[in-house]
């Protein structure tokens, strides 16, 4: 049976350099805005203005106001900040778990490897969102539970990547040389293997961030994520859903667009990075 390719959905993005540059600019702007907004334009998360509810976009409120009179653009920036932060931390957790499993499987090998990889295959068959909902429901919705729920369900690809990389490295001559030179297993791992694996792990983490952001927004949307008055993208779309029928489409459109644009940008940058890391030319012809 051929090896199953479990492709992360965004692995298809292969933009040209120009596209990647644009994406990098968008991403950098978004991150900068997220970092600067608390300094330049601090948000009182609990502030409401009942005298200007559901206002359509104007110059003072470029994305309108929601059903409690809060500025949608301002809250979207804060929501992006929270979502990206959760996404990054959760992706890091997932990478650490996956990295550990992959490292054990790739270095110990044998039965340990076989069992670990079978577990990875089978855990991949568990519906992520359901498992995530279960974890959050049992630990009660909170920041930590959301991060844990993402971390525990998204480590598989990293485990596979790290293991594959380690296995391919083990056959390289410089590793043989190091081992026959008397280097200890730990030393080989930290000095020789890790530097090769780390860039791939970093890439896997980056590619994971959009998934983590989706997971977080989905949980928040279902009311199982962050406390509902905090500005997070999922909460905002959930709130905005109620305003749709009264015609206030802007309250859910804006945070949704933020998710789309930022995840596309992250994916494009990561894809470009991967192409550079792995200069495998997709030969269109054989000469």
């Amino acid at each position: 049976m051929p090896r199953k390719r479990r492709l992360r959905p965004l692995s298809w993005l292969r933009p040209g350099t120009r596209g990647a540059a644009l994406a990098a600019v968008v991403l950098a702007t978004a991150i900068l805005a997220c970092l600067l907004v608390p300094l330049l334009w601090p948000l009182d998360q609990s502030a409401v203005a009942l005298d200007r509810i559901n206002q359509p976009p104007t110059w003072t409120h470029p994305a309108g106001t929601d059903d409690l009179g809060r500025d949608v653009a301002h809250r979207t920036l804060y929501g992006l900040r929270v979502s990206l932060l959760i996404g990054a931390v959760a992706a890091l957790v997932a990478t650490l778990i996956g990295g550990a499993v992959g490292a054990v499987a790739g270095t110990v090998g044998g039965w340990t490897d076989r069992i670990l990889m079978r577990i990875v295959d089978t855990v991949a068959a568990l519906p992520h969102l359901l498992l995530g909902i279960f974890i959050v429901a049992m630990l009660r919705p909170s920041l930590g539970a959301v991060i844990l729920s993402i971390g525990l369900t998204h480590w598989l690809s990293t485990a596979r990547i790290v293991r594959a990389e380690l296995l391919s490295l083990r056959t390289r001559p410089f590793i043989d040389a190091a081992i026959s030179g008397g280097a200890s297993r730990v030393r080989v791992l930290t000095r020789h293997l890790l530097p090769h694996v780390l860039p791939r792990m970093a890439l896997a983490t980056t590619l994971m961030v959009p998934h983590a952001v989706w997971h977080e927004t989905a949980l928040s949307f279902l009311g199982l994520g962050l406390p509902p008055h905090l500005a997070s993208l999922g909460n905002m779309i959930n709130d905005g859903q109620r305003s749709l029928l009264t015609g206030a489409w802007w309250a859910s459109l804006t945070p949704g667009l933020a998710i789309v644009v930022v995840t596309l940008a992250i994916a494009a940058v990561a894809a470009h990075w991967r192409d550079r890391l792995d200069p495998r030319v997709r030969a269109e012809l054989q000469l």
Partner: protein
Amino acid sequence: MSARRTVGRRLLVAVPVLAATSMGMFALGAASPYDPAEQYAGAAAFTATDENLAQLRANWGVDDPLPVQYWRWITNLVQGDLGWSITRHEPVTSVIAARAGWTLLLVGAALALVLVASLLLGTVAAYRRGGWLDRGLRAAAYAVEAMPVFWLALAAITVFALVLGWFPAGGLTDIAADGVHAGDVAHHLILPITVLAVSQAPWFLLFVRDSVADSLRDDHVLAARGRGLPGRTVLFGHALRTALLPFLTLIGTHLPELVGGAVLVETVFSLPGLGAVTVQAALGSDFPLLAAITLVTTAVVLTANLLTDLAYTAADPRVRLDG
């Protein structure tokens, strides 16, 4: 022979993994700070006294030691008794039985739609690689891929239900209808099925497009063209047959994503399926129901994986005869 081995190997892994998963879930449930008695009482907990709640707890044996509770749960589970839903006040089995069909219908129809559409569009895009259809489809696929499915669902409701009024915004049947009529259900399900299908389509579409495009440059396809075979014979008899073999197993591995999407779609469209009840169970911390749904879904997905593996084994002589 090989098929039997596939089944055997799958089961060999699935059983311990299901056992471990169930144990992990039970541990998590036990560690959770929720009081099932209060969850049961719901709003009425406000008027129930402490003794009242203590009696409820005693009635369920929730104060027994953990291993005792786990053993009771797992033995019941194996005997087909999935427990008693705390929030729905009925056996978990009947909650699942009443709703699983609709979820299966939603997931199944969406999967069928995704497969047909992605095979069709992906092949056309690959055939006219670099053309406007190819570029347009790929751009749309990337964009849709970045959209959360619930957002897509909201947009679909806004446009097709609220503005255009073509489809109902939710529900399963027309409410005044006596009984369930296929046409009525179909009309209500078109929008949710389409949304679920569209949200999952990019991955399948791009996969088909890329593998067919690659396969059209494969040696055996060029050779078939070189033999002067007509385009349709080359495409269906040579290019698709090999390009789509891995697709079979990928359907299986992609099912978990589809199930996750169904949870969100059912919630937005207020469909009486398993997804929606999962969310309610989670909000009410209904451990027996949540655990059962997670385990049952996992078992279904594992079975589906097994089936696609078997289908693959049957479809590829290299695997079938090599065992």
